[in-house]
């Protein structure tokens, strides 16, 4: 294998490729990047952690086709530090990579490419095109609610639904649930419901930027994200996502409009008086005022409030401050609505009809 390509483009690709590589993989070859040149004019670079795989195709001047793997992180570091616009990469027959750039020559120990796991082929593909920033926002508003409890693995990802032209993304850990929707964006005939693993979601959020469209490819067991020169393929979580609609209260007794920043700041302040042992905030709604209190026998107590438009009964409910903050931080809207019914029934944070966040209460002490 022998080619010459643009150094900056190669380095940018390697940066993304190395981000999914695990630090202590049991398969040493997985710390490498697969470099492949077939007949075409492209250099294909692939890395994978067996859950998520990424492939870049770079334009290159091909001297000789071939296949090999080289240590991904080292390649990334070398191409970052090199001086010069063009990099020449030649692989010797014993899998040693010779990298030349300007006056520098680097010999890098590689491994044969035959054993490198290939990205799965996406068969029976459906697809939609979606603006990258739109997709990123959908993920950002839900990803924090993904469960890390591996015993309920169906919750270890986001539930991604396309139905009647709308996209709905849901994530829950059983104690709170975040749901976000985007109306009339897809082909109304397309029906998709998949669970995308947390790892993939996090990688994707890192990669997504800008207003260009990205193509989502759906197959039976895989999901792919395709843009110009990059393809990310991830396995899906198999299983049935719980019936989330049942958790979302149909109605509520009280609706309170809140300034998001002000409310977040209040929660964050009072939450300073909680810790792992005692992590509950008490929210009291009374005439024109929301009072938040925390009491922790080890740390101390706090009481703070903000003015609200509230005319209902004096009402108290307790929530975990972390759950409250997570949603408020992920949003960028100015106002949110908090819907409440009983101290023992869930609270709901809403933004228009696009964002719904259900948060289970704690027993009042």
């Amino acid at each position: 294998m022998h080619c010459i390509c643009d150094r900056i483009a190669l380095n940018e690709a390697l940066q993304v490729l190395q981000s999914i590589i695990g630090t202590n993989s049991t398969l040493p070859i997985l710390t490498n990047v697969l470099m492949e040149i077939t007949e075409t004019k492209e250099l294909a670079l692939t890395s994978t952690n067996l859950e998520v795989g990424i492939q870049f195709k770079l334009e290159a001047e091909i001297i000789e086709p071939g296949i090999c793997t080289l240590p991904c992180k080292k390649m990334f570091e070398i191409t970052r530090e090199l001086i010069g616009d063009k990099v020449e990469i030649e692989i010797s027959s014993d899998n040693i990579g010779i990298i030349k750039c300007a006056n520098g020559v680097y010999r890098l120990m590689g491994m044969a490419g035959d054993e490198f796991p290939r990205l799965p082929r996406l068969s029976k593909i459906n697809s939609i095109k979606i603006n990258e920033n739109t997709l990123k926002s959908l993920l950002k508003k839900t990803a924090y609610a993904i469960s890390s409890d591996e015993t309920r693995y169906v919750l270890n990802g986001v539930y991604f639904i396309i139905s009647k032209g709308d996209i709905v993304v849901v994530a829950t850990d059983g104690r709170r649930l975040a749901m976000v929707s985007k109306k009339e964006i897809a082909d109304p005939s397309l029906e998709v419901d998949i669970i995308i693993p947390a790892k993939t979601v996090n990688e994707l959020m890192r990669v997504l930027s800008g207003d260009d469209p990205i193509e989502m490819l759906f197959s039976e067991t895989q999901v792919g994200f395709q843009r110009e020169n990059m393809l990310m393929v991830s396995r899906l979580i198999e299983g049935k996502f719980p019936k989330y609609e049942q958790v979302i209260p149909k109605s509520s007794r009280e609706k309170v409009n809140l300034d998001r920043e002000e409310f977040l700041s209040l929660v964050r302040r009072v939450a300073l008086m909680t810790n792992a042992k005692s992590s509950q905030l008490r929210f009291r709604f009374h005439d024109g005022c929301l009072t938040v209190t925390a009491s922790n026998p080890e740390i101390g107590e706090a009481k703070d409030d903000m003015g609200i438009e509230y005319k209902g009964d004096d009402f108290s409910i307790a929530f975990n401050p972390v759950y409250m903050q997570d949603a408020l931080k992920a949003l960028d809207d100015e106002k949110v609505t908090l819907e409440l019914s009983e101290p023992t029934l869930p609270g709901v944070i809403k933004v228009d009809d696009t964002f719904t966040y259900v948060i289970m209460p704690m027993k009042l002490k």
Partner: protein
Amino acid sequence: MARNVRILDEKVINKIAAGEVIENPASVCKELIENSVDAEATRIDVDIEKSGMKSIRIADNGCGMSRENAIMALERHATSKLTSDQDLFSLHTLGFRGEALPSIAAVSKFLMRTAQQQELIGTRIQIDGGKVYDVSDDQISPGTIIEVKELFFNVPARKKFMRSYHAEKMAVNQIFLKLALSQPLIQFTLSDEGKEVYNLIPTNNIAERIATLFGRDFCMDLIPFSAEGDDFKFHGYISHPQLCRNTRSGQYIFVNTRIVQSYQISSVIQKAYGTLLPNGRFPIFFLYLTVDPSIIDVNVHPTKKEIKFSHVGSIETMLRRSIEAVLKDSKLIFDIKEQNDELKKIDFSYNIPRFTNVTPPDKKESASSNFFASQEETQPVKNIQPAQNPKPEPAQTIAKDIGDDDFLEQLESIIEHDHISTPSSPVSDQDNTTEQTAEITNSEYPNSSTDFTGIRIIGQIGKCFILAESREGLIIIDQHAAHERVNFERIMESMHANTIDSQSIMFPVTYQVDSIRKKALVAKLDLLRKAGIGITEFGSDTFLIDALPSFISYKAVTAVLDDLIEESQKTKSDSIADWQIKLAKMMACRGSVKAADKLEQIELEKLIDDLFKTRTPYTCPHGRPTIIRMTYEQLRKHFRRE
């Protein structure tokens, strides 16, 4: 066939009595040594042959007996220790029933030689199987010598029931050990087949005697305690949890210097250890209890092994409190023992005392092989020079007598062998040595200087253990055990303060039961709710869980319920406090990180930080160690850097 009722003749009565009191050579030793103690001897020499079956010889320098008394003593129910029935409830002597001597004499070839202090001519009485053979003059120094030969020669049935030589020898050893522990002011020697096994110098410091019997290393793991009540006082030593055994064999209870067994006391002490010990492990302890003789009844059993207290509540309470207090104040990190120590542990579990064997300097090269020698290989003990008379301050006595270079060398070799916590400063001069000896014998608990500041975490290994550096060396923490301890105390605290966080969950968990399990669970619903688990009956054989403490996962909660039901089928206890502890243990266990959970550095730090804030960081709630350590001293030893 009619038979006449008759009064049994003396010989038969004695044999029957012998059956009760004299079971084996060890019980002969016990009775005779106790007599010597009651005779106010200051030195008692015990010689046995063929584990005591061939011969037992007990010689003391006590008050001796006149000829008249000596002959009388061999009559049944003859005793000098009791004059009226009132005395029975204010006993100050170990014996009182007047059964031992005639019983022993009835089943052996018995020779007694005795002389009183002021008499020139003593008495010699020889009895074969209860029949007086010979009474004559004798020339011995004041005291009493009793030789018991061919025990049970005339009771073949009993002889058949003797255990192996080894077992009988161990039994003799045990009883000797106990008696030696009960009377540290008396010099004891034990010889087996003519070889001296023990030579115990008198001391009024019980730790000194324990150290001589069990070794200095052993003593390093003992923690002293003491307290005083209205009509009782006690003192003694309890073991670091790492020194526990799987039987109660290491528990020595002395009530008014009498060796007794008391399940009651044993379980009080066990309770004081709480979660420091795993199920089925028992602490080692030495308890010296002094009570007004009128509140105890010793006359429960002919061998006087058991004892009854007329009121024991205040003793129990104070004992428990006192032990809880010293355990709380002690740093109880488990040591990574060297191989030899492992050997020692095995030895103890088989209940074989290890003989301290300090070899003279010229034999030094053989010292290590003998150090843990089993009994057969044991060389005669050349111990610290016996002082002839008990002196009030043994530590100072040693200081005074220390001019002897030979002794210093021996002492050094003791210290050299003491690998648990040899003081790191080299032995520079005599004074220094003396101080160290005093320190060890006073059982200044060596670990009490440990502190947890300045711990640096090195990392996680095997996704299971956390390595860290402390001021003293390497410490290794079991992540699951540590997290369990943290959660356990957190749960217990919250339960008591009724402040446990109970977070409602979106997808309630159903829990299926059958009728038996249902009944068990229904009885525990209040307990569970108090612990933050929202659980309600939901149909005939289903429960619904709709709220959980935040640290417990969905799956863990069903495991906790399984555990709880299983436990309630095993245990009969209804005490709410007990069940709270049980439930807290289960929740702590199920809610904690497991082995094989990868933890990030920040999680490791949090865990260690939390662990050292707990009240008992040294063990998990089930009594397994959370932290073990290897001191720099031990590391140096392993790398032969001395």
